């Protein structure tokens, strides 16, 4: 299968780029915003100010390129736990994301104007749900779409299959984005499946499958754009395999040294999605040192403000753990609530 690519590893265009300069700048900015958050989040984590955190370094283009095609008030974003970059671009406030990775209730309650499902821990379970969300929009007569993210490892779960099958049978307006980042914790993609290209799986469901260079924002963005248009036209789901690499540890608690070599990672660092996009903008004369410095400063300001806001969130109360179990509290929760409040 041919891999869709627009930029080479240095950012030189290989074919005509279907985006305006404004769009390209918007895209680059989205990449940088995500990267900045990721870098600073890891620092917070080391300071003990975040919980377990799954970095996405190297996968920004694969996530941002898709999120740029969606409208937060209308469409649906169904991430795994890896898609903080997609969430940022989709419109999640940074302060909520910080609280979310702090495992704070205030972060887990997603704003009403952002149609994002919470980050999911149980692998692949978002797949049939995303099919249902997408199909519901069809039933309601809207042209909204859903985008669901899953990893190479996630494709092995039964729910990946059941979700794809439901989506295809019901022509659900859904983008299934598989980020093939080479690893499922310590298990390489070759041990995860026998097939070379995950996008080939689309043929088993009678839907289109596309392989795209996941480190090439222009490529991901244009592939996603077409899939979204197709879905809005009511022509059903598309399976997109974004070939990328997890250059960071699986999570802040992982030690990649146990299962992979520095060389492999180094090779992929040379294909960094942000450097490539930056190279392209410079090649177009749209970007320079000064602009970069200015942006960095702005992003740092935004991040610090978000941290301040997050830090102002009220301490979670013990009794919150038995709230929101049902629409109204039953005696069993009420008794627990009273006990946790120290009331008899």
């Amino acid at each position: 299968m041919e891999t869709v690519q627009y930029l080479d590893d240095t950012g030189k265009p290989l074919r005509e780029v279907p985006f305006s300069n404004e769009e390209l700048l918007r895209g680059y900015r989205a990449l940088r915003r995500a990267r900045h958050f990721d870098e600073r989040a890891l620092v917070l984590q080391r300071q003990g100010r975040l919980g377990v955190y799954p970095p996405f370094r190297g996968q920004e283009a694969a996530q941002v390129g898709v999120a740029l095609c969606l409208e937060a008030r209308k469409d649906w974003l169904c991430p795994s736990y890896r898609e903080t970059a997609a969430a940022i671009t989709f419109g999640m406030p940074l302060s909520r994301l910080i609280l979310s990775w702090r495992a704070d209730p205030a972060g887990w309650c997603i704003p009403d104007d952002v149609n994002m499902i919470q980050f999911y821990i149980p692998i692949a379970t978002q797949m049939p749900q995303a099919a249902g969300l997408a199909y519901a929009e069809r039933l309601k007569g809207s042209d909204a779409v859903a985008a669901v993210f899953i990893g190479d490892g996630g494709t092995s779960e039964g729910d990946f299959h059941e979700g794809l099958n439901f989506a295809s049978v019901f022509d659900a307006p859904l983008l299934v984005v598989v980020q093939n980042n080479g690893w499922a914790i310590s298990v390489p993609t070759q041990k995860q499946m026998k097939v070379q290209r995950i996008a080939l799986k689309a043929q088993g469901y009678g839907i289109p499958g596309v392989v795209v260079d996941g480190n090439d924002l222009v490529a991901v963005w244009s592939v996603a754009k077409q899939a979204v248009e197709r879905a809005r036209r009511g022509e059903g789901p598309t399976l997109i395999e974004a070939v990328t690499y997890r250059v960071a540890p699986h999570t802040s608690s992982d030690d990649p040294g146990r299962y992979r070599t520095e060389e492999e990672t180094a090779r992929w660092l040379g294909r960094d999605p942000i450097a490539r996009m930056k190279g392209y903008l410079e090649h177009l004369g749209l970007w320079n040192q000064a602009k970069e410095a200015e942006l960095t400063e702005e992003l740092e300001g935004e991040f610090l403000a978000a941290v301040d806001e997050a830090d102002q969130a009220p301490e979670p109360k013990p009794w919150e753990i038995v709230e929101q179990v049902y629409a109204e509290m039953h005696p069993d929760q009420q008794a627990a609530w009273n006990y946790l409040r120290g009331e008899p």
Partner: protein
Amino acid sequence: MIAERETRVLNNVQAINEALDLALAKDPRVVLFGEDVGTMGGVFRASDGLMQKYGEKRVFDTPLAESGIVGFGIGLAMAGLRPVAEIQFAGFLYPALDQILSHVGRMRHRTRGRFTIPMVIRAPYGGGVKTPEQHADSPEAILAHVPGVKVVIPSSPERAKGLLLAAIEDPDPVFFLEAIKLYRGVKAEVPEGYYTLPIGKARVVREGSAASLLCYGGMVEVCLKAAEVAAREGVELEVVDIETLVPLDTPTILASVQKTGRAVVVYEAMRTGGFGAEVAARIAGEALDYLQAPILRVAGWDAPYPPFSAVENFYRPDAKRVLDAVRRVLTH
């Protein structure tokens, strides 16, 4: 019985079919789906004629995949619909348990109320009619151990209709288990039209003073039969139909046991870890001083429900086994 209403004699399947019909007519957000639910109207005919009446957008067949069915339903619910999913037999809820344990019961809690799952999952359960292997399972204890879900098990056509309509109106996920033995085994007067019955209330279905029989679903008729036999010997047994397992109506259960001083819990699932253990534990935790005898459980044995038709009825509790236990608590 709902006052001042015309009634019609229906069996359980007919009552459920009527409830589904009324829900589809009343609320455009309600959708029905599952394996063989559409064209065929369900293997037990619970959705008979409804696809023909409401169209394939409201009532539809799905691929053969229970995790897909429940997961798809979760998505429909989060998008604002009122999904009513049918799992063909309760023993086939198992492939969906990940979606159930990981999401159906956690969504409201996890998202602090932003997303909720007002979904009903119906499934026929229980034995007694010589079905093939795994068509007679009673997994209610597993469902009752899932935080955030409700579990309702009706024991008559009138209750089934009103409780199913209440379940569909409920803002939280409700598992609605229907005893296969009662589908066509019972016929009774059912109020006409749309009505709901309260979820979360147990009912004393026969009053008595000698001992309390605590049961639900398919075991209610068994306990009533036992109570009749006992009555002939002058022993008045009280029969409590628990009806809603979660949220459990503990006060009604305790009141009965406090009155009789003796409790026998009856269920057809495997004894160890069955829901009857929870009922016994609540009594032992909150009404111990009233007990004049041990709390006994009459339940399925600690073995799989037998796939061997000729002897399956020795697994499921019957009036005789209930009365053996009653004798023991009375002579204690």
